[in-house]
């Protein structure tokens, strides 16, 4: 029982980290960024490339190396997110929603198969495996690496929340989500804020990618597809566009999957998650913490 809860929370913190980027971008420009899951994949691959470049250095102190790589990867994926927004989404701002969605699908495709061209179609094995001794807490088996990764996730999420609620930058983001035109009139550089939002969201996804690489050990160019869907599910459960809601949604989805897997079998895990998504959209489309919005005619 407590093992199931722990597993759920652990996987859920990954979901939450990826879902945040989804949620932030949706909150600010109302775009479902299908390429978001692929930024997670890109993070895993850029981490892989950096570890490869560091070579022998890695062996000596793997946790420190992974931490350095994590930071560098966040910068790299963050910049990729900015470039995607600049090249693919910005020219279409104000275009019909359908065009933007299709562009997002295109961006996702380009990222996946672009990575395939560069890195090859076969899965890669991470050079660093985090392993450590396990602890027994209330009957659950918890490893040090899980604790470390979860701590990183929590730190990142707390930092994000502070950024959004306490800084000018965060206030500008919230303002744009409310009314981009008014922000323009008030002298806020909307383009810049949107770029930064993409940077932060993508960086978080990239961080999750590196952590997943280090934890699971194996990465491939399609790994972002399912996690993208899961992250969206998490965002919807919590209330898309709502930051604390999204974090909650990630953890809840992790728990649901953990219990679902236990009771209906692992091969049905994804079916279980997506069926839950459809159910949730039917019953409470605004999510647990999302507010009901009246769209003005």
């Amino acid at each position, binding site marked *: 029982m407590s093992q199931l809860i722990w597993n759920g929370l652990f996987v859920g913190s990954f979901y939450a980290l990826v879902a945040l980027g989804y949620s932030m971008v949706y909150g600010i420009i109302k775009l479902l960024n299908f390429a978001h899951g692929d930024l997670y994949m890109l993070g895993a691959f850029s981490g892989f490339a950096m570890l490869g470049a560091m070579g022998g250095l890695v062996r000596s102190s793997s946790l420190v190396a992974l931490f350095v790589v994590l930071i560098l990867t966040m910068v790299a994926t963050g910049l990729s997110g900015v470039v995607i927004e600049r090249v693919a989404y910005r020219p279409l701002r104000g275009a019909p929603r359908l065009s933007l969605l299709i562009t997002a699908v295109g961006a996702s495709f380009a990222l996946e198969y672009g990575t395939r061209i560069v890195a090859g179609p076969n899965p890669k094995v991470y050079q660093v495996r985090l392993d450590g001794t396990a602890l027994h807490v209330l009957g659950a088996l918890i490893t040090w690496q899980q604790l470390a990764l979860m701590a990183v996730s929590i730190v990142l999420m707390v930092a994000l929340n502070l950024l959004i609620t306490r800084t000018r930058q965060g206030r500008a983001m919230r303002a744009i989500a409310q*009314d981009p035109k*008014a922000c323009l009139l008030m002298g806020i550089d909307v383009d810049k804020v949107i770029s930064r939002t993409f940077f932060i969201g993508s960086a978080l996804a990239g961080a999750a990618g590196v952590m997943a690489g280090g934890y699971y050990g194996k990465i491939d160019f399609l790994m972002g597809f399912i996690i993208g869907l899961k992250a969206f599910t998490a965002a919807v459960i919590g209330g898309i566009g709502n930051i604390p809601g999204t974090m909650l949604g990630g953890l809840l989805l992790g728990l649901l999957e953990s219990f679902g897997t236990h009771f209906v079998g692992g091969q049905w895990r994804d079916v279980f998650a997506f069926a839950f998504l459809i159910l949730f959209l039917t019953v409470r489309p605004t999510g647990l913490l999302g507010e009901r919005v*009246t769209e003005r*005619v």
Partner: protein
Amino acid sequence: MLEVEDLRLSFGGVLAVDGLSFGVGAGEIVSVIGPNGAGKTSAFNCVTGFYKPTAGRIRIDGADVTGRRPSLIAARGVSRTFQNLRVFGEMSVLDNVRAGTHLWLRQRVVDALLHTPRYRRSEREGTEEANKWLDFVGLRGDRAGLVRNLPYGEQRRVEIARALARRPKLLLLDEPAAGLNHGEKAELLDLIRRIRDLGIAIALIEHDMGLVMEVSDRVVVLNFGREIADGPPEQVRGDPAVIEAYLGRDADEAEVEAAREEVGGARGE
């Protein structure tokens, strides 16, 4: 025809419409006026089902339609235009007006798949009807071309023709004169009268006081979501409450003032 009773609408605590009651009789032209933000368009959106009122009743021909979806209210014989012009830009002018025929055109999917005589007949009927209303509103320009290629004033005509092709009993016009020049306004005045002569009741939101006073049978004045006067134009014009709220300055100055209010409102948010 239309009865609105004690209508209330709030957006997260802000009362946009606060206990509004008014009616439109058959074949009558009723104007709803008031300063910007008085709740006119919100009231229209409640009547046509786009907003769900917080409280109150809306009846059409005696039948309660409060909170029903817009298409159902349209099916009851209500048609409308929008304040900020909602035409189907990427479709032809004729197709736009054909939208109005949707509710009464007798054509089933099977007819369309097999191109039965009924399909041909109904398509011909729809096209004739569309052309008839385009003639009626006096559209100038290519009817086979895309609507977005027409000048603004002509697009407004298309929107009105579309609403008329619905063959409504009640037509709601939301600021039809906005953005029109002097000559076009005169044509609009004439058009509204001709629509009334067809026996269609009209509810009109308008800022152009000249037009309102000229065309209306009755004028309802709103301020802060409340009705402050209801009567024939001459009576409303002399009503002290109205003068105080709205007509004390002449129309042009009121518009300047209203624009100022809008800017102030945006800054406040």
